[in-house]
């Protein structure tokens, strides 16, 4: 399994000395030989996406490009906070072969299973 952790998950933490992070929405699916994680990070570009893999934990940090926008706001629904979310990885994942790409604010992480963990057919002799 690929477990999003509760500790870093909660939205709008309000301790004053801590940065406020938005939790990106994710889809996670398991295929035969890999897990695929998709995270929504609108406004985040390739250069401002950080992916950390440490001790069986995957952390995605996406910073929005805070371009100075012209004019005055009439109506605002978007948040200016950056994105962050941590996932606990299944030990079967081969951390050396994890790949990440970002396209139109959607991060796709491919987490291949190690060779030993893949289902194998055993020949009967």
């Amino acid at each position, binding site marked *: *399994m*690929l477990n*999003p952790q509760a500790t870093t998950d909660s*939205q709008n933490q309000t301790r004053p000395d801590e940065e406020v992070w938005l939790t990106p*929405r*994710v*889809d*996670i*699916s*398991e*295929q*035969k030989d890999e897990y695929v994680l*998709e995270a*929504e*990070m*609108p*406004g*985040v*570009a390739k250069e401002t996406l950080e992916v950390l893999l440490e001790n069986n934990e995957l952390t995605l940090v996406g910073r929005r*490009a805070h371009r100075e*926008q*012209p*004019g*005055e*706001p*009439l*109506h*605002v*629904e*978007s*948040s200016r906070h950056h994105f962050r979310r941590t996932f606990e990885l299944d030990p079967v994942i081969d951390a050396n072969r994890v790949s990440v790409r970002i*396209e*139109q*604010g*959607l991060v796709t992480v491919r987490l291949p299973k190690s060779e030993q963990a893949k289902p194998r057919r055993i020949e009967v002799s």
Partner: protein
Amino acid sequence: MPLIRTYRPSGWPYATLNQLSALGEELNRLFDLSTRAGLRPNDSLQSWMPPLDLRETPDAFIATLELPGMKREQIEVSVHEGVLSVSGERLPSEPAEGCSVFRSERPFGRFQRSVSLPKPVQADATKATYRDGILTVTLPKAEEAKPKQIEVSVG
């Protein structure tokens, strides 16, 4: 569909709206827990409403919408009688054979957002760009809506 009325910026009750939206999220969370609908919380309880911002410069209105992971051809933008409408659809991904879904938080289906612009715009000069999952629509104001400097002549 939500119709956003834009008043003078100073009159807009930002705090109240934010509180309402926080309440909505809390309710969704409770429903989510009670129905064990860890999958598809957005599906039946709430239509998909991508966040929309509107800004005004002396020459134009600029609307931005957060639409991560869409294709350009899935987004429709139109301007009609001073109302900007953005709509589109994201289809749920077909699960591949032998694939199991663990988490499905991303909304899918149709969305539509409309905003009535407080001043006349040049509909046919409207431009839209889609970058990093953000749609930006620039609507130039009609000539009569632009601020004009009047020279004072000494008589």
